[in-house]
């Protein structure tokens, strides 16, 4: 029971964090069709900016200002890089963002050095939210989950219930018609990209303090974020949410499972044989916890290529 409850909470909150990072990516892809490789680079910039700012203006203003600056950076990237290559198609956009991710990583190393920086959860937030089977549950984790849920709610409402959402969606599906009606489509695109980047920046500013802020953080999360988006369905916000939570829960539960294939084979009397063969058969599930999401992605791609909640291709 204890294992189940703890894993459930840990997994859900980690999933929510994953959503926080991948929301911007799925938004940009869903709205603009741009697969932004530099997305987690914006996440990293958000963390570093918040780290620099909190020394001057304090923690809360820092995690508000940092995403705004990152959003502005996103606008600049869209206006001066992506828009220029847009006419050449997806491959060029992908390559531009790919190159950008390397440049950002090197720039970060240039300004902040090769090692993790001293970005920590402020002492005023470093307390236990509640006790769970005798262990403290950090308040900051709960807060990250809350921010993620808030983010999901706001984006969802913005896109589905407001005029802005209608304009954005029409600019995507019928750009010519939206333009004819007097809407500035390039401006909409620029705005969407800026908001997407800003969301990544927010995730970085919040999570950077809890995890580590180092020059490799973009790389470490980069692949996983794509896994989330692929499993959830390219461009589907709800899908990204479901996939994030799914990945969070699976990796959290897998850590506690020490079963091996040999244990299962023991039920049919082949346990000793399996132990002798060794290799894959005696590998614990728990030691594979971080690899399972990738296996899940392969499975989804084979069975349902458009993802759990993606539109039919």
């Amino acid at each position: 029971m204890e294992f189940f409850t703890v894993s459930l909470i840990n997994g859900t909150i980690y999933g929510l964090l994953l959503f926080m990072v991948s929301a911007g990516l799925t938004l940009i892809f869903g709205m603009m069709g741009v697969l932004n490789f530099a997305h987690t680079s914006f996440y990293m910039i958000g963390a570093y900016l918040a780290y620099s700012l909190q020394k001057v203006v304090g923690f809360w203003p820092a995690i508000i200002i940092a995403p705004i600056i990152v959003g502005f950076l996103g606008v600049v990237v869209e206006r001066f890089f992506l828009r220029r290559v847009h006419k050449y198609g997806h491959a060029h956009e992908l390559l531009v963002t790919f190159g950008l991710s390397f440049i950002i990583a090197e720039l970060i190393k240039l300004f902040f050095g090769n090692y993790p920086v001293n970005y920590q959860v402020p002492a005023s937030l470093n307390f236990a939210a509640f006790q769970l089977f005798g262990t403290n549950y950090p308040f900051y984790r709960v807060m990250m989950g809350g921010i993620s849920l808030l983010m999901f709610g706001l984006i969802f409402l913005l896109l589905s219930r407001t005029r802005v959402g209608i304009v954005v969606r029409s600019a995507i599906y019928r750009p010519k018609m939206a333009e004819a009606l007097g809407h500035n489509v390039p401006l909409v695109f620029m705005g969407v990209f800026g908001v997407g980047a800003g969301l990544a920046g927010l995730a970085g500013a919040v999570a950077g303090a809890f995890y580590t802020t180092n020059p490799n953080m973009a790389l470490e999360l980069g692949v996983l974020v794509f896994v989330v988006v692929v499993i959830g369905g390219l461009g589907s916000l709800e899908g990204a949410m479901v996939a994030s939570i799914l990945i969070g829960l699976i990796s959290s539960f897998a850590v506690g499972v020490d079963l091996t294939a040999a244990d299962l084979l023991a039920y049919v009397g082949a346990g000793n044989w399996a132990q002798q063969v060794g290799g894959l058969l005696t590998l614990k599930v728990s030691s594979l916890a971080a690899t399972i999401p990738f296996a899940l992605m392969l499975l989804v791609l084979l069975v349902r290529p458009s993802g759990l909640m993606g539109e039919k291709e």
Partner: protein
Amino acid sequence: MNKKQISLSVCALFAAGAVQAAPLKVALVETLSGPQASTGLLYRTAIKYELDRINAAGGWNGAPIAVAEYDNQGGTAGASDKVKAAIAEGAQIIIQGSSSAVAGQITEDVRKHNLRNPGKEVLYLNMGGEALELTGEKCHFYHFRFTTNAIMRIKTLVPAMKEAKALGTKVYAMNQNYSWGMDVDKAIKDNAAAGGYAVVESTLHDVNKIQDFAPYVAKIKASGADSVLTGNWSNDLLLLMKATRAAGLTADFGTVFLDQPGNIGNAGETALGHYVSHTYNVEANKESEKFGNDYKAKTGHYPAYVEPQTIFGMQMLAVALKGTKPAGDGINVTELAKNLEKAKITGPMGDVTMRAADHQVQLPMVVSKVDKGAKFKVDGTDMGFKVVKTFSAADAANPVQASCNMQRPS
């Protein structure tokens, strides 16, 4: 001076050049770019520091030693290519440190090269690859390891923590799922009797892929462990420590790579009270302080993490070079290797020697604890490493592995 005289003197110059041996060339095949570059660049700093001193003292055979840098980009394939290129460009000594996987590739490449090119051997100086197999199954005459290994680290960590009453009776072994982590895991289990503890659980996890260590912390808590011993490095160590303290667990950590720059800064108070077994602590004694200050004057920081052992290794190379006379048009690498086996230096922590049987360096170790009372603070925090216990080279030594079957040149 007429034409004849000039051409004669030119001829004489050429003749002199032919007698003069070619300058010794050293290749640094290190990770200088990409995610793991932070460690590679530290090796470079340490190697350059000592090579500059060797060259200032006259280099080898009256000529400065030439250094060429090759970026292996953190991978074995890159390293293999760069070793070939370095040898083709005349390098006779290859130096590398970060990653046991890369070290394993280079040592094999060098072994094969030497088999195929008798008389044109090259030497591999391993400054940081700690996997046991490098001085075990893969040991060979032209490989020298100047760093410790899992057994030496845990063998020192355990008694020091036990004396400090930080070990308890229940130990959790938490390691990365590859050769290094498995070595540490085994060493932790092997030292259980000596340390008077039981390993309540041992976990091997994916390397550098886990963002969220909370599920592992739940496991540590459930096991009731008093302390956690881990060979984790970089982000895997930081995230694990932070997650443990965030959950309010007070288990002390026994670590190996806690002194990597940036770790204490990022972990903050979370790191307080944790232990590390390493090869040097600036505040160990007067000599270590002097050594540290000189290094700081030249490079801007005190030697830490992988730097100390690298400097000691280069000092041993300097001793061996002194005893090696030029032969023909260059250095006889086999001769140099034989001298390196006998090389002995008195480092700031004590005597450092090379064991001829498996080419594993024998060096003193120190176990330190993160404390606010430390004299030298790190990462701009108010914390530093306080010496808990020092070990002589003999105390820290691990026996020669039976799997090492070294073919010695006659």
